[in-house]
């Protein structure tokens, strides 16, 4: 199967899911990596180290910032002339839209956010979650090239083979400037939920610390939010010791305790870390849909009947405000931090 892999990067910093996609491509045959951007030859070299056999490089100032229209036109031109059977993308915000637009140009279709892929002749059969993972579907694309976006962390990352190299072939960028990037403001440098191996989450229970008294002058709602933010500090400290990211339930986000970017669940982020620790989260069906495929789930909740315990490997029936800081201390000691 003639397979291309689109390497997604942010300002020259490749996303690990791109390397996972090369790994998947290698199970089907040789892999041609597609690297688009401006001054991104280093990305091309990294692609060889993760297993790419060759690289098609569109390096042009017109591709300086990721603007989906220009990238889609460049991709569609390459795919029309080179006729691959399959193009893999990581399921990132960029990967999704790029594949989506290219599918319109190339009169084909996209299999989005795939978690399993097998070859059947020169076609692939993909497995993907729908309804936030409440169901799985097998799906195929009856046109060429088949466009597939792969969920991050669903496939193993190949070993890096330092110093590996190969042939880079330059391809033409298609400049198409429908949008203008005015600027960026990046996050505080925390671990992103999608890439995190460990996620520590908090729910409504973060605000129930009876040992705390809110500062004077706050009304009930302000006091509740203040208490919850104290609770999330404990959650954040545990996440930090474990090198993980901080998550939250929808209830906590809707109550104004924590920004939406942290929400895990059907209308937040669907995650699949190696370790998920849920604190003060009862486990509504929408939340479970967003984290149930985590490898090991730990739940801390006062209510022994909370549904979260039904998906948890380990549970503590108790007060998260006591258990979480104790757990942070225990890990500090045991992990030597």
């Amino acid at each position: 199967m003639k397979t291309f892999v689109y390497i997604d990067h942010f300002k020259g910093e490749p996303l690990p899911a791109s390397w996972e996609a090369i790994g998947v491509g290698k199970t089907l045959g040789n892999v041609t990596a597609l690297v688009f951007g401006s001054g991104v030859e280093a990305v091309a070299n990294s692609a060889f180290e993760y297993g790419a056999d060759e690289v098609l490089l569109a390096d042009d100032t017109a591709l300086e910032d990721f603007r989906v229209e220009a990238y889609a036109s460049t991709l569609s031109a390459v795919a029309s002339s080179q006729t691959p059977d399959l193009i893999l993308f990581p399921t990132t915000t960029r990967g999704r839209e790029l594949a989506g637009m290219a599918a319109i140009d190339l009169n084909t279709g996209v299999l989005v956010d795939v978690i399993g892929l097998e070859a059947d002749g020169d076609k692939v059969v993909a497995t993907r979650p729908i309804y936030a993972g409440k169901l799985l579907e097998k799906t195929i694309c009856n046109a060429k090239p088949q466009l597939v976006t792969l969920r991050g962390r669903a496939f193993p990352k190949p070993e890096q083979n330092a110093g590996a190299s190969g042939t880079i072939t330059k391809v033409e960028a298609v400049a198409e400037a429908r949008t203008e990037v005015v600027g960026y403001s990046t996050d505080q440098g925390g671990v992103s939920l999608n890439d995190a191996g460990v996620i520590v989450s908090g729910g409504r229970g973060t605000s129930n610390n009876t040992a705390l008294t809110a500062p004077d002058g706050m009304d009930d709602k302000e006091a509740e939010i203040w208490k919850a933010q104290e609770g999330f500090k404990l959650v954040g400290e545990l996440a930090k010791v474990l090198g993980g990211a901080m998550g939250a339930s929808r209830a906590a986000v809707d109550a104004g305790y924590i920004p939406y970017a942290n929400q895990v669940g059907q209308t937040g982020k669907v995650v699949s870390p190696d370790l998920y620790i849920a604190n003060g989260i009862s486990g509504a069906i929408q939340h479970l849909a967003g984290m149930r495929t985590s490898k090991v789930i730990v739940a801390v909740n006062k209510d022994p009947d909370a549904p979260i315990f039904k998906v948890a490997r380990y549970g503590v029936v108790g007060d998260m405000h006591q258990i979480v800081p104790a757990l942070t201390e225990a890990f500090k000691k045991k992990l030597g931090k």
Partner: protein
Amino acid sequence: MKIVACIKQVPDSAAKVVAEDGQVSWGDAPLVINPWDEFAVEAALQQKEAHGGEVIAVSMGDENAKEALKHALAMGCDSAILVSDAALEELDTQGTARVLAAAVQKVGDVDATFFGRQAIDGDAGITPAQTARVLGWPMLSLAAVITVDGGKAKVERSIEEGRQTVSADLPAVFSVVKDFGEPRYPSFMGIRKASRAEIPAWSLADLGIEAPASVIEWPELMNPPSREVTCEIIEGGSPEEIADTLADKIIGEKVL
């Protein structure tokens, strides 16, 4: 501004969804407007409030989808259109984008088309970008903040790495994320108006297009493998003792 808000009807997010005989079943859970699309309607209404004009809600689906359109009307949309045709069953996102783009063209003189970021049933999240591509309009996706000024739009996009500010000329397609702000509840007057509204249905013939061919097939639907977990409850005399045991158990799982 003349604005189209594209919405979809889906099973409620609290529904217990299962595969039964190869079909999706959501039991007796209600069908509702896709929760993401409420943010799209809210964003569209705010633009109308700021600049004048009208908001037209458009949904592709069967007769039932009129309920979702009524929700959009009750929130404050001026009119609604159902795009419905027997030939549109089992249509993939590429086909859906072509049909919605044709509907936007038929509405005519549209300045902006709003979508939610994705539908909570299929979870693909690519129909907005594909519709923009068919229309040949710029795509301003995952918008958390939207400002329109003199035929130009500026949005703050919520992406993995933080916020990105992007501008483009109108007409443009927008997709809206939850950071945009809470969607309004339908008002009592809105609900009364919506219940009496006549919602026209446009067929493919009305749009002047043939049924787009679906290139995606879904040969199999499965329930996810059930997680055979028995929860081991960690107990102890003090939080410290519990934490100590739990930390050892977690370290023993070799996931750190």
